[in-house]
């Protein structure tokens, strides 16, 4: 031990790399000829390009879906209980917004509630979506 201290210590990583490269069971590195390596390169480039296109198309599809959902929520936010926006209401001649304040965007606010969502899926999700949902939601006291 005392004699070893004089020599510089070789890095263990070098030892590990040499072990794995020179092990008799390690397959030897492939050496391609010029044409073979060019073909390999072409196939690799094509595959990577294909994967990139796939990924981008998936990304775009997700973005499109998200934007569509965001647009739908925005439209819902501006709609009152009768399905009219403020502009349409004034055109039709309905009474002013002060009465409709709670109604405008009510369904939007209900949809945006995030309390207790996934700890047990709420029963409301089992219902088919309708254009005119009832105000009372689910009747838990219903018996046959």
């Amino acid at each position: 031990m005392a004699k070893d201290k004089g020599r510089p210590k070789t890095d263990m990583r070098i030892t590990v790399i040499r072990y794995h490269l020179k092990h008799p069971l390690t397959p030897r590195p492939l050496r391609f000829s010029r044409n073979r390596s060019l073909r390999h390169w072409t196939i690799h480039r094509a595959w990577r390009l294909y994967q990139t296109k796939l990924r981008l198309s998936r990304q775009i599809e997700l973005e499109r879906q998200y934007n569509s959902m965001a647009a739908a929520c925005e439209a819902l936010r501006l709609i009152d209980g009768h399905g009219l926006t403020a502009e349409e209401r004034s055109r039709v001649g309905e009474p002013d917004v002060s009465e409709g304040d709670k109604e405008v965007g009510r369904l939007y606010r209900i949809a945006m509630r995030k309390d207790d969502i996934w700890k047990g899926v709420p029963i409301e999700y089992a219902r088919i979506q309708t254009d005119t949902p009832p105000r009372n939601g689910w009747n838990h006291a219903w018996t046959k």
Partner: protein
Amino acid sequence: MTLQRASRPVAQCIRQSSSTLHARTLATTTIEPSSTDAAPPPPSDPFSHTRNPFTASTPAAEKQLAQQKQRPVGSRRRRAALSSTTQIPFTQLPYQAFQEARAFLQEDRREKLEAIGLQRVKLVRLQDQVVVGEQDGEVERRKQREKDNRVRSMGRRLEEMKVMADINDPMVKKKFEDGQGDMTKPIYRHLADAQWRSYKRQILVQRLTQMNVIPDVLPALEPIVSTGLAFPTTSSTTPARSRLKRVQHGDFVSSTLSSQPPTLWIQPYNKGTRLCTVAVVNPDVPNVEKDGFDHRCHFLAVNIPISPINTRVRLGELGSTSENKGDVLLPWLPAYAQKGAPYQRMSIIVLEQPSPTLTPILTTLLGAVAESQELDAESASQDPRYNVRDGFNLRSFVDRYGLKAVGADLFRTKWDEGTAGVMQQAGIVGWDVEFRRKRVEPLPYQRKASERYR
């Protein structure tokens, strides 16, 4: 004759399919090589008596080739391989994954070409738009600036798209690797630039910073053009054609070699011809009085046209003939370092001359270089600051003419046996001067009294 002509497409089809079926047999008929890729050289046809230097691999064949006074091309293994392979051009090799990949890449290239066409149309339409507003108003100027920025960005995007269209082509890669890339095409310029930046440019910047050329000669330098340097060796046997000795960045060059003006290769990677200035500055001239170093200019030339295909600049022949355009303000002075002085760095700075301000943005489009302004060599040679070698200030020169440093090279000189001779021949004063280190008196050392401090 007409029958032959009529049956040619059918014959081609049959020949094509037979070649793929009999891929392993020796092809005796040659397939017409397509225009894009070169087929390997065809085997000699059975009735000729001359050996092909590409395919002669057996001892008898090699002997016959020697009798024909021809040398074999390539190793024996290569020649044997070539003689037994078919004559299918590389792009038509019948490997499924390769052909599928090629088909996919060609489809992608078609899409990219369409996109390039659309981009060109968009660009032209944008340029045709006129910025409306009150004359010389704040808003109008801002809108004009925004429009110029958009035109520039679109131009850059167009250049990128051109490169992206060809970058997946194996024949382009092969051509470039073989050194046959056409520098007028953007893809080859891009590949050459990428190759230079991956290694040689890093070496150059390392040498420039380690040798402190960057803060000493110029405050900052980002090399955009690659440089190469070679000095002519005048051999007594061939007086007409002297050979060139390449010099790597930062090498020591012997004084006899650097007494002749060198050849500088300047390779830009964007299209267009531009005018450059080359200045060779030595920042290590010893000055005994101030106990420091001065700058000296060994060479100064302006208005040298450089383009991606015209890269060679023979510093000794600039301006002399009508084809070597360029104005030499200070001719080549051999590099010398007197005896006893430390080695001296000789920096070669390549500066791009500015474009005139009246050039519309149209010519700076697509990554091209605007027409450079000619520097007035007459007035520059009259200017007392720039027509003397000693004390030449490159920073001042750059500021005065609005130059931009685009490239650099470096070599070093030290005293050797030939320096005195070179200095005498060039008529430089001080060939017999020797520098000596000034003896520094040591600080007085107080010896301590007892034995313990010995």
